[in-house]
């Protein structure tokens, strides 16, 4: 056997394989990043410069922040932003309380029919949103809650899946802790907040982050339930900007708005990168 040749061939193959791998990974990274680059680039070009480029340029030598000023003054972007913030925070906060109590009841308390009720809850996980949204639209309309925050928030403050996730987590806490707390005369509520909640904090953080992402990107429900611009969220806000904003097709200003809308979640993601990715692989779906 010619060992030198075998060695050489193996090494060369390894190098080629590595090169192809990195090329493919970089190619996809480019495809992912390019739209982000393009939106930032376009948002920095002045209106006249952008429209005079028949062949789009990949850079700009005269960046301007005018588009960002326009985005906040010509259209009510700050309004959309504030609405989304209120909607996101309120929905997430209420949902956390609701699922916390429900998960606690399922995990810790014993009552007749518990298993049947829980099975029913699980069955609800299979129901697609599209099926119930029609009636919810009619319900909210009948209650006169269109164009209110209550109407926006109400249907999305429970999540069977998160109850399930939290319940599973609660059940991993050993029974002995509960018994010990009971012997010490701790009430259920106190046990929930002083013992279970701190132990399950990572899961709560994961759920919070996932819910915030979901709320920030919500489009269908806000679009159905609001037609008053004062209650638009960023998603239907940007759609409004696209169709009626800025008077003319002011793409650079539109891109400035897109950048502003995209930044909060990206920052949140970069800070909590590990938590977000772990959370999504445990319980996120999109696509």
């Amino acid at each position, binding site marked *: 056997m010619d060992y030198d040749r075998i060695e050489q061939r*193996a090494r060369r193959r390894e190098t080629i394989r590595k090169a192809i791998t990195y090329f493919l990974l970089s190619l996809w990274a480019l495809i992912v990043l390019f739209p982000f680059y393009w939106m930032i680039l376009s948002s920095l070009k002045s209106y006249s410069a952008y429209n005079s480029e028949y062949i789009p340029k990949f850079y700009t030598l005269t960046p301007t922040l005018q588009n960002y000023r326009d985005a906040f003054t010509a259209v009510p972007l700050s309004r959309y932003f504030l609405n989304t913030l209120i909607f996101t925070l309120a929905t997430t906060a209420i949902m956390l309380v609701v699922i916390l109590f429900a998960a606690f009841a399922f995990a810790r308390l014993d009552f007749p029919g518990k298993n049947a009720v829980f099975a029913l809850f699980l069955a609800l996980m299979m129901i697609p949103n599209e099926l119930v949204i029609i009636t919810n639209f009619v319900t909210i309309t009948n209650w006169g809650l269109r164009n209110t925050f209550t109407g926006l928030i109400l249907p999305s403050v429970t999540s069977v899946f998160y109850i399930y996730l939290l319940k599973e987590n609660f059940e991993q806490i050993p029974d002995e802790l509960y018994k010990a707390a009971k012997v010490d005369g701790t009430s259920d509520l106190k046990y929930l907040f002083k013992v279970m909640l701190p132990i399950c904090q990572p899961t709560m953080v994961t759920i919070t982050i996932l819910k915030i992402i979901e709320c920030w990107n919500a489009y269908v429900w806000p679009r159905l339930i609001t037609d008053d611009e004062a209650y638009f969220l960023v998603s239907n806000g940007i759609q409004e900007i696209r169709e009626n904003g800025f008077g003319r097709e002011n793409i650079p200003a539109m891109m400035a708005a897109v950048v502003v809308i995209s930044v909060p979640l990206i920052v949140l993601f970069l800070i909590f990168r590990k938590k977000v990715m772990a959370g999504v692989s445990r319980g996120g779906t999109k696509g």
Partner: protein
Amino acid sequence: MKVVLDHLTKEFPSRSRKGDTVVAVNDFCFEVPDGSLIGLLGPSGCGKSTALNLICGLEKPTSGRIFFGDDDVTNLPPENRGVGLVFQNYALYPHLTVRQNILFPLQNLKGKDRLTKAEMLKKADEAAKLVQIEQLMDRKPSEMSGGQQQRVAIARALVKLPRVLLLDEPLSNLDARLRLQTREEIRRIQRDTGITTIFVTHDQEEAMSISDLIVVMKSGVIQQIGKPQTVYDDPANLFVAKFLGTPPINVFEGRVAGGKLLLGEDEVLRVGGVADQAVWVGVRPEGFIPQEAGPLCCRLEGVEVMGRDTSVVTTHPAAESVSIRSIITAEHRINREAGTVRFALKPAKVFLFHRESEERIPFEAG
């Protein structure tokens, strides 16, 4: 096929501090004679698995050479070395049947080495027969016991007739009874096939019982190489002495003064040819002889009769551990009521070690 390791060294970058390296295998030199069974023995983290990975080619050494026979295989990819590897957790493909698992290595062969389907099946059957699992060929790994899975793993490693067979902790996932049975099985298979075999273990009893040679390692450095009995009877240093033997060796703080060995105040043995100094003294459990007027006086803590032998638990102020365990044969009687017991020591079972370097100090009994 003899295997030669020549100044083999493997360094890993340290995880804790940047730029630092951890030396997993440090300057290994030894030769595995053709057709022998070698046990690489050491506590966890001593670098024995790394050594195995270097031999099979899953890792590249930092320096040094590896020879199979006269071939230098140091930089050869694993598939060209002709090695078989058996894993601690068996690594059987869970979605394949036993037969498919054993066939797997054969189906990888290409070109002129490629066998016909019938030849492959015949070889697989032969390998299965060798490890006595012919009747299990159509089962999935999950439907078998740990011992059976281990046999399949061995058959899979043997089916392509490797030049060297490597076993990584082959018995540690088995329960005590199966372990005993399987280690004899491994010995038998190795004898039958005559394939040079290297296996890694942390269990000294396992290594001692089936190896032709054992290599005792600590922190990446070879401590001693030799036949199991030789290493046991003649340990090179305190670590080897402590690592081999159940129950373990009893260690005392002692000193040599004027050719006499003292444990505390007790003058236990004449030791010729040793300069006056403080030493570690190791005494094998079977090195104690109960004697009315024996020089070593210990406080008696308990006596455990274990059938043929009796285990005597005592304490002594100079002992390094809390209690001393000695094994004495049934002909000696111990008075359980007595508060103390006196022993004489068998010189061949007593070892002296340097206090700092812990290296063995030879002495002349007399």
